[in-house]
């Protein structure tokens, strides 16, 4: 089990107040902004930027960059690893 992805799921639920969901409900590749996935909206996307800074120390100054990074938990984890490696 990838602990970064599990942590991310917990953080997403916490930061976005998705109290009806548990970590087990979020698949690694579920589309976060698709209604068939988590159905998040534009404010949630901005809150994910806050999450990245709060838990991972990563600053994102252009919301456009988030569009690719926030597709799924998979892409978020990859983005965090890329930024940390840089």
């Amino acid at each position: 089990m990838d602990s970064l992805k599990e942590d991310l799921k917990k953080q997403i639920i916490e930061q976005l107040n998705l109290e009806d969901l548990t970590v087990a409900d979020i698949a690694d590749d579920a589309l976060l902004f698709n209604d068939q996935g988590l159905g998040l909206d534009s404010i949630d996307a901005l809150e994910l930027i806050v999450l990245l800074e709060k838990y991972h120390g990563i600053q994102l100054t252009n919301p456009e960059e988030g569009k690719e990074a926030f597709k799924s938990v998979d892409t978020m984890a990859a983005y965090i690893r890329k930024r940390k490696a840089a």
Partner: protein
Amino acid sequence: MIYIGAEVIISPLGDTAEDNWEALSENRSGIVLAPGVGFNKEDIHLSQIAWLNGPLRFQRLVIKALAALKERIDASILTSDRTMVLISSTKGALDDNLHDQFGETCSAVMQQFNLAHLPVVISNACISGVLTLNVAGNMVEAGQYDHVIVIGCDVASDFVLYGFQSLFAVSDKPCAPFDAARKGITLGEGCGAALVSGMQSVFKDKPLELLTGTSANDANHISGPSRTGEGLVRCVGRTMQKHGIGTEKIDFICAHGTGTVFNDEMEAIAFGRLSLSDKPLNSLKGYFGHTLGAAGVIETAVCMQMMRNSMLIKSLGYCDAGTSEPLNIILKNEPKKLRTILKTASGFGGGNASLMIRDL
């Protein structure tokens, strides 16, 4: 008939409607670069009143506006129990008292001017000003009061700036409503006031006619504009229908035009659907920034000045068309007789409001 007049504007451009008019007619803006005020200590463009600092900024501004308005009307109506004062604001005196953002100001205004009724605050985000003018007109029309004074006021705060920064909605240049390169809003502070009355005689200068409008919710999203402009279409449509005014009668539209990509696009779509795309249109945010709860009152007061001076004012910050539906944006000041104008506003919570003003 419902009259509106005695307009007051207090902004970085001046303390009277006339001073503000002079600045607008010279296309001067109140927006300046404020160093280090952003959440991350960035420089931020703001339209801030230089002399307004220290405590009780909201209260002082409201009192100053009402004192100025008093000079322009039969002052004896102020203390009448047939007179009501409505205050339009989003965050009021937040910096003075978080838990009671309006109470102290309302009491102070009532006491200072010896009002018969405690002022009522209307707080509907960015449509507050236009909505409150409509409420005033409706109250007079229904005979609940003879005179209703509307004061729209919001002051600058870290709170609001940081909030809009968290939404990535603050432009790094002075806002450019409807322009292709627009990148967001510029915040402003200011105060506008006007008297709405059923009696022409209480105005020292000739008033105009207020054609009260309606509000409509987008029923779409609390912080994102509708993609279809549905709420704005319904609200403007109902306002025009209520007064039997067809599109051919509208001489000018003072739009909301915040300078965000989605708001301005929504408005362009709505005006297209309303067959109003060819009407001369401006946004005044390039002059005053977005003054939130004050915006609708300040901008309506400017419309009144435009009508009094028979002049269309350039939409400051606009260069290239930047909406999917075309608009007839005013590129330079131009003399024009204005008989009937439309003012609109849209805002958080999905609200839309509109009103019309007609020359007597």
